[in-house]
């Protein structure tokens, strides 16, 4: 067959693509799939948020007002699973789908059909996770998983059908993430434009490359762990039952071998995009590109060997306590390199503070609090006091809301004009930023003090000395939740129309993605660009 004709036919074929719903069901286009990931993520962000607002409403005052403890326990666990697996991870994957091919000059992802499948596994997984809530309304089962997202055995062995639904949901989500990761690794390693060596590759791609490797290493361990849980529940195995020669702590090892790297899985894509944003709005090159690449790798490697600091009160032997304490502390070193590079990128630039830059600065400061409290948490003796308390809850929300979600919002505001071809409303964006930052701190700062004062996490009711801080936190949480409606409106408004965005969008941008039109054509980089050595 004549190759030229084939190419031509191939291109003509695009005019006949299905439209409407069928387009989205069958699409293999990285931009369409990226859009679906991001839309799904936004939707689930509100689902997970609604759950936790119900929890905060119950915690507004001491006493049980709105719900039974059983239902409270379901809400906290499903909130976490939804936010982590259905909101944050898909958002990062959506970014990867949209931006990696544009950034490295590839026409699409390496495995477009796998890509479609990876996305379409998510809605059924999310449905599985939340279905027990609905089933319980019809008298089937006793609701969703009520063990917290950590699913600790033997509590999860004891639990109702919600646990089984959660296990299968995790299996599906895991398969989806592994397929996404394979695709990203294949794309990055094989489809970079000529001249773009790995060390010249944009940091966002680097952040994702390390993330994808971490996912492939750790997700099978989680899948194995929850499968062992499943067989303990239904087939009389005794992996986690001491009476049968098993060990409940084994589950915690398996879970956190995944769970700790998961924190970096959620954060690395954000750390990857941050330098691009900072460089754009300081109009200055990224500081320490190579150092940041090596920091990503170092954090990835260290992240794999510190898991037991999530259960330092479980009674580990002293040598293990010391090892996990010092290895955890050492993560502060590569992380400090990142902070140093971010601030050095800003130093002596010419800064302007559009919404993405505001979110980036907010991210750096608040994520700084997460990093510093994390350093203190590593200390075994002090951890005995912080652990299982609201101090930890506050710490990881500084990491995952201020670090993860505000990081994602940075990316959305930064790239939205490129994706849609329109500028979002700067006024609404800034309003959203300030409301988010203020209400976020109102929500979570009091939780540090609650933890220090001795309030355990995951309790539906509390002693009277915790009342004031809980009330403040609840007011903050509702303000925080409502502020996000501005975000959704701003995004919707920008998709619909608005001021035309230029190809470069921002004055200080550099990189291949900004050479394409805004929005980029359905198929971009049909002819590979060549990166010239400077």
């Amino acid at each position, binding site marked *: 067959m004549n190759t030229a004709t084939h190419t031509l036919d191939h291109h003509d074929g695009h005019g006949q693509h299905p439209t409407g719903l069928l387009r989205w069901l069958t699409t293999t286009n990285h931009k369409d799939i990226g859009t679906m990931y991001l839309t799904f993520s936004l939707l689930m962000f509100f689902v997970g948020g609604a759950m936790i607002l119900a929890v905060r409403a119950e915690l507004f005052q001491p006493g049980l007002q709105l719900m039974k403890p059983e239902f409270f326990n379901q809400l906290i666990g499903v909130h976490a699973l939804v936010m982590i697996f259905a909101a944050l991870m898909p958002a990062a994957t959506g970014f990867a789908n949209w931006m990696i091919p544009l950034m490295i000059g590839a026409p699409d992802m390496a495995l477009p059909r796998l890509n479609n499948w990876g996305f379409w596994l998510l809605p059924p997984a999310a449905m599985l996770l939340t279905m027990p809530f609905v089933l319980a309304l019809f008298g089937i089962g006793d609701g969703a998983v009520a063990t917290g997202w950590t699913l600790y055995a033997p509590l999860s062995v004891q639990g109702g059908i919600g646990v089984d639904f959660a296990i299968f949901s995790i299996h599906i989500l895991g398969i989806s993430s592994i397929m996404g990761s394979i695709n990203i690794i294949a794309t990055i390693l094989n489809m970079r434009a000529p001249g773009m060596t790995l060390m010249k590759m944009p940091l966002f791609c680097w952040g994702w490359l390390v993330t994808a490797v971490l996912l492939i290493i750790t997700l099978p361990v989680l899948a194995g762990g929850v499968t062992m849980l499943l067989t303990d529940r239904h087939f009389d195995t005794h992996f986690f039952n001491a*009476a049968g020669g098993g060990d409940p702590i084994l589950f915690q090892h398996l879970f956190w071998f995944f769970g700790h790297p998961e924190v970096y899985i959620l954060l690395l894509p954000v750390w990857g995009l941050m330098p691009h944003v900072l460089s754009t709005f300081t109009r200055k090159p990224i500081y320490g590109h190579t150092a940041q690449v090596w920091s990503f790798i170092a954090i990835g490697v260290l992240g794999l060997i510190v898991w037991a600091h999530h259960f330092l009160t479980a009674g580990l032997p002293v040598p293990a306590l010391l090892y996990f304490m010092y290895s955890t502390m050492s993560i502060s070193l590569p992380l400090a*390199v990142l902070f140093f590079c971010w601030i050095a990128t800003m130093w002596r630039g010419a800064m302007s503070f559009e919404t993405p830059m505001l979110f980036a600065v907010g991210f750096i400061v608040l994520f700084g609090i997460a990093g510093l409290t994390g350093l203190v948490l590593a200390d075994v003796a002090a951890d005995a006091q912080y652990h299982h308390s609201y101090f930890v809850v506050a710490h990881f929300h500084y990491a995952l809301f201020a670090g993860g979600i505000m990081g994602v919002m940075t990316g959305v505001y930064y790239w939205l004009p490129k994706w849609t071809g329109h500028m979002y409303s700067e006024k609404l964006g800034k309003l959203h930023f300030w409301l988010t930052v203020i209400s976020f701190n109102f929500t979570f*700062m*009091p939780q540090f*003090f609650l933890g220090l*004062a001795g309030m355990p996490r995951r309790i539906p009711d509390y002693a009277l000395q915790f009342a*004031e801080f809980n009330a403040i936190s609840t007011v903050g949480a509702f303000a925080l939740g409502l502020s996000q409606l501005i975000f959704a409106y701003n995004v919707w408004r920008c998709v619909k129309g608005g001021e035309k965005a230029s190809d470069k969008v921002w004055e200080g941008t550099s990189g291949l993605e900004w050479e394409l039109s805004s929005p980029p054509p359905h198929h971009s980089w049909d002819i590979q660009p060549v990166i010239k050595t400077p």
Partner: protein
Amino acid sequence: MTTLNPRTPAKLFAGTGLMLAAGSALADYTWNFPKPVTPIGRDTLSMHNQFMVIITVLFVVVFAIMVYSMIKHRKSNGAAPARFSGPAGALQWFWVLVPFGILLFIDFVLMGIPAFHAVIDMEDTRTKADMVLKVTGLQWKWKYEYPDSGIQFVSTLATPREQIEGKEAKGEHYLLEVDNEVVLPVGKKVRILLTSTDVIHTWWVPQFGVKRDAIPGFLRETWVRIEEPGVYRGQCAELCGKDHGFMPVVVRAVPEAEYAAWVDKKKAEMAAAAAGGEKTWTKDELIAAGKAAYEKNCAACHQPEGQGLPPAFPALAGSKIVNGPLLSPEGKLIPDSHVDRVMNGKTGTAMQAFKATLSDADIAAIITYERNSFGNTKGDMIQPAQIKALR
């Protein structure tokens, strides 16, 4: 050592918060750990204070530099962007490596060394231990045993249901009060052994600076030396199911003489309870005692009227098991019968083996009560002596 108070930076914020929260007047504000009363607790607090100072300084210094840059290097100030993208020359490399060196020092010397000693100290449960307390977590109560004197009892939440549901005013120690407090002597090193019969629980008293998981099938340990008499309150800290928020820990620390008196009193109580297991009870006595014991031990799941919370917690009213035969004709235990369930529990569920925690009299009374209440009309009864024989 600097003991800059880590509360200060938060005060401004908290002040605003207080105004918002006006209306609840039960203010007993703590911005930090509650007052520690053990060596470990004091050590932890001073370490925590020191670390908070360190991280506050780091935070302020790093972000002061950033804020300075944000003010100074703005486009609107006419700043022209520099072009550098990494350290150039020995001097710049030096300045890049200085913060790295400082952080290494903070991690592994300034914080690392005291942290090392604290860990060693915290885990030294055996050296010169004066006595042992065994703590067993059960859904959702704590069982305490004193191996030296043979004392054992179960400690459950004493806050009335009405307070939790808002039908009564909440008491001073709402949710942090129990029926049987643990009593420990002041000044003695108490080695605490922990385990659980069902799921993982965590024993935590904030003022002791001690928190340790109670894991089913394993023993974990920790220790306390309480330095001041007083009542110290804490809670279960690991999600352990429905009533995780309702299993407080209350420890009363008393001088040694008072402790000895308590031990004698407790021993006498236990002897009296054992005597109750010997005598023959009437059905009415058993039902009356059974109602009280049921409400304390069973009602949280099976509900006061026996309707349960299906499917996790089955109803006892009209239950096949409760209305089944009591014992086999030879007086032996029937597998999966009512008596078997109460005594041996059901594995894989929250139904625990109550023979581990309840006396013969309590078990006999509860079984008799259940068979003659909630519309169940078996009309039969079981004597404590029969339970004793079945153990």
